[in-house]
């Protein structure tokens, strides 16, 4: 019996739906949309499109409350694959962060590598050339064998993929805490540049226009959920199911060059990269956006493995693939470019005006669903979850600083902090990344707080920073999230830049746990307030739920903020001391407050304390002051005070310059 026949045999019930991760009421909703019971292929399509990852069903309601407008926002959050911001000189910057936490926990090398591949595709699918990458990595106890294995694999995976792909890694952060012992966080960020007006949209319209799949062949990658659900139905033997997705940076590089050449050749209606839910997601999102339909012939999709069923082809998450909708008559022009780069491609269908997605296998219609009903912002469900303040939140307020005795030997404390893995130099990590390819990284020989990326042959440069102190966010999600945005902005201001916009990667535990959802809701409130204050709209990003450390509860709520800034190169400010005799100023009020500090948490082992003092208004004023001082050329270096406090800030400026410092504190 052929795989297709077998598939048609499957009797679909609410049990099948549950196995595919759908709720009974979601199964009912599908039946209402179709006016009949879905077959197994249609049910698996809904199961991936209505998954948390694709639909954001438990987070979109709150994400919509974030500020998304801004004078230079060209593509608002959710409109395109990445946010798009006008940066002047007729150029726009597309940038975004994405997480690959769960795959990296299973196979760190390939998990991290495919994360880098995925985020870069989101940039060049818009016709923008990626020019800079950053990453935010969080692991458990650095002394444990498991963490060592994860760190080695993740760093080598990011390095091997990013270096071969040829985009400089210009910044990032590495953080260790026991809460990440089981579930590391691997967030990858990419930013690209495109001329305003030359962007490509992820849309599809124009009856009869051909639909191309371009890039690697399709295999049974990443279909575990549906595969498990159907295991007693279609005999997928274990060794037939790839346990992990393998990245091919070489294929990605030629896909980049070919995509950009095609984008400039005015032959495209639209283009989208294949990420989660592969063909299903790209065909449905592009069709819904362009309010058209598609006829897709799955037997035309180039396969890497034999006898794949319809749902396997539809759900496959094989890497390095794009979907192109080409203007009728321009097929030759597109194929000439693809042949030049020796990239495999195939026409797998055409656009229709029915607003429905009709998938065929060997001439038989195997799935027929309305595109709108599948997508975020269309028929995908939207939920609000119950939220409950956790006990630890009030417990933390009971902490009192008096209980902490000042250690006799302060030199020992200083040594402890400066050698602590969270504070010490991360050169042992980033030296494995190519940070100089593209010859745009201006921070190589003179570092600033933010990474400075030159826009050649113009007066300006871009500033990038990834930031989040997850301990502050755990202690007080609202205040912690405001601090994360403020610290990113502070770093850009200290580099002589002006904050423009942010993307974010929201890493949380299980949203059905009310205490986790309380963390999520309050993070959104705090982030929104700070973004409004600094005038940095949220242009998109990613939500990653279910980051659990099974026996220790959820990971710290970790909203990694990726901020973009712009600066005139003449205002570029660096952090190293310059000349003997220069005066050192501390801007902003000093307070006797070390709660949630690395000193308290790691030296005194006090794991629970309230978030440190923070006032958004005060923070904004300090940044405005530092910004104007820099523009007036009154100072020679600027460095922000963050993890480890004032001593570490001074030590870093000293180490980078080889000059010492002499600080006297008053007696109080």
């Amino acid at each position, binding site marked *: 019996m052929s795989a297709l026949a077998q598939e048609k045999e499957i009797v679909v019930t609410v049990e099948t739906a549950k196995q595919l991760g759908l709720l009974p009421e979601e199964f009912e909703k599908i039946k209402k949309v179709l006016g009949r019971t879905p077959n197994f292929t249609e049910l698996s399509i809904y199961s991936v499109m209505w998954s948390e990852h694709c639909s954001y069903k438990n987070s979109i309601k709150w994400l919509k409350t974030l500020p998304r407008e801004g004078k230079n926002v060209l593509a608002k959050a959710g409109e395109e694959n990445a946010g798009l911001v006008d940066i002047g000189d007729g150029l726009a910057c597309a940038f975004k962060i994405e997480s690959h936490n769960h795959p990296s926990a299973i196979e760190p090398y390939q998990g991290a590598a495919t994360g880098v591949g995925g985020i870069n595709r989101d940039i060049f699918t818009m016709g923008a050339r990626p020019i800079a990458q950053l990453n935010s990595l969080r692991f458990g106890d650095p002394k444990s064998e498991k963490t060592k294995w994860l760190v080695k694999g993740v760093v080598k995976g990011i390095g091997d993929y990013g270096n071969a792909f*040829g985009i400089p890694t210009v910044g990032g952060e590495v953080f260790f805490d026991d809460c990440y012992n089981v579930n590391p966080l691997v967030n990858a960020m990419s930013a690209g540049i495109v001329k305003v007006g030359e962007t490509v949209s992820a849309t599809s319209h124009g009856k009869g226009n051909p639909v191309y799949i371009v890039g690697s062949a399709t295999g049974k990658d990443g279909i575990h959920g549906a595969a498990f659900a159907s295991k007693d139905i279609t005999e997928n033997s274990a060794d037939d199911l790839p346990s992990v997705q393998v990245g091919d940076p070489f294929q990605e590089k030629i896909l980049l060059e070919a995509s950009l050449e095609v984008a400039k050749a005015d032959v495209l209606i639209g283009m989208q990269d294949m990420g989660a839910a592969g063909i299903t997601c790209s065909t449905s999102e592009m069709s819904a956006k362009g309010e058209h339909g598609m006829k897709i012939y799955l037997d035309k999709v180039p396969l890497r493995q034999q006898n794949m069923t319809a749902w396997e082809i539809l759900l496959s998450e094989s890497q390095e693939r794009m979907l192109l909708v080409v203007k009728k008559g321009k097929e030759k022009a597109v194929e000439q470019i693809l042949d*030049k780069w020796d990239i495999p491609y195939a026409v797998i269908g055409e656009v229709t005006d029915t607003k429905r997605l009709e998938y065929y296998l060997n001439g038989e219609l195997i799935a027929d669903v309305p595109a709108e009903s599948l997508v975020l912002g269309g028929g995908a469900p939207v939920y609000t979850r119950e939220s409950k303040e956790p006990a630890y939140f009030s417990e933390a307020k009971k902490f009192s600083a008096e209980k902490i005795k000042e250690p006799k030997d302060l030199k020992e404390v200083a040594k402890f902090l400066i050698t602590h893995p969270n504070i010490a130099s991360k050169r042992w990590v980033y030296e494995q990344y*190519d940070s100089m390819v593209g010859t745009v990284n201006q921070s190589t020989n003179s570092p600033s707080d933010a990474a400075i990326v030159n826009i050649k042959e113009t007066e300006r440069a871009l500033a990038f920073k990834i930031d989040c102190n997850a301990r502050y966010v755990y202690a007080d999600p609202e205040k912690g999230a405001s601090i994360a945005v403020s610290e990113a902005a502070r770093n850009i201001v200290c580099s002589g830049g002006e904050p423009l916009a942010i993307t974010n990667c929201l890493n949380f535990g299980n949203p059905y746990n009310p205490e986790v959802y309380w963390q999520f809701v309050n993070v959104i409130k705090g982030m929104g307030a700070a973004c409004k204050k600094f005038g940095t709209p949220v242009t998109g990003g990613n939500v990653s739920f279910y980051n659990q450390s099974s026996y220790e509860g959820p990971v710290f709520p970790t909203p990694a903020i990726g901020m973009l800034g712009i600066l005139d190169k003449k205002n570029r400010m660096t952090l190293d001391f310059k000349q003997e005799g220069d005066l050192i100023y501390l801007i902003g009020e000093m307070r006797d407050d070390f709660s949630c500090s690395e000193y308290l948490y790691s030296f005194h082992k006090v794991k629970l304390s309230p978030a440190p003092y923070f006032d958004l208004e005060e923070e904004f004023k300090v940044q405005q002051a530092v910004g104007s001082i820099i523009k007036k050329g009154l100072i020679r270096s600027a460095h922000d005070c963050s993890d480890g406090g004032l001593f570490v800030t001074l030590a870093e400026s000293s180490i980078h310059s080889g000059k010492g410092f002499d600080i006297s504190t008053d007696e109080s």
Partner: protein
Amino acid sequence: MKFGVVIFPGSNCDHDMIYVLRKIMGQEVVELWHKETSLQKCDMIILPGGFSYGDYLRSGAIARFSPIMEKISEFADKGGYVFGVCNGFQIACEAGLLPGALLHNSDRKFHCKNVFIKTQNNHTLITSGIPKDKALKIPIAHGEGNYFNDAESLKQMNENGQILFRYCDEKGNITPEANPNGSIENIAGVCNAKKNVFGMMPHPERASDTELGNTDGKFLFESILSLVQA
């Protein structure tokens, strides 16, 4: 002077080199696609850095079979100038244009950082303009830069002045600690017997732009232009 920068699938430092040659050195530069077979009458062919064919099998092992490489070998045999940087050096070795081979770095890790190199022979096209005994600060970025050759060939190369650069410390001392990848005799760059084909692992094109805060690499490009135009 007319330069031809070859572009292989996977090259990613091609445009960095083109920018330096065209915008900073003001020279005529053409892009040579690896499938073409005309060198467009260039005076010098550049094999740029990158990961041609993903560095799969061995760095440069596949790129050397591109159609253009045959023409470049003929060009080199007739005395034409060829300069390979990083991946370009690996391709030149694989193609037999340069002696030796580039193995994996001894610690099996990729390294991207500034290193210092000391010129060993100031009488070649790309070294004539470099101040004697000056330690040049040039960045490296590679995973397979560990130069190797058998003892006999090495002896000949030394005697014939074919060793162009060795890794050194800030003061110019050639020490084991200054060797970033395990290369034999700290070798960072070599040329062929006829001294018209050059290869080096460090990237001079990444140290030629004042906006990046280091222009030690410009000495090499200035050397090339001074000899050829004179």
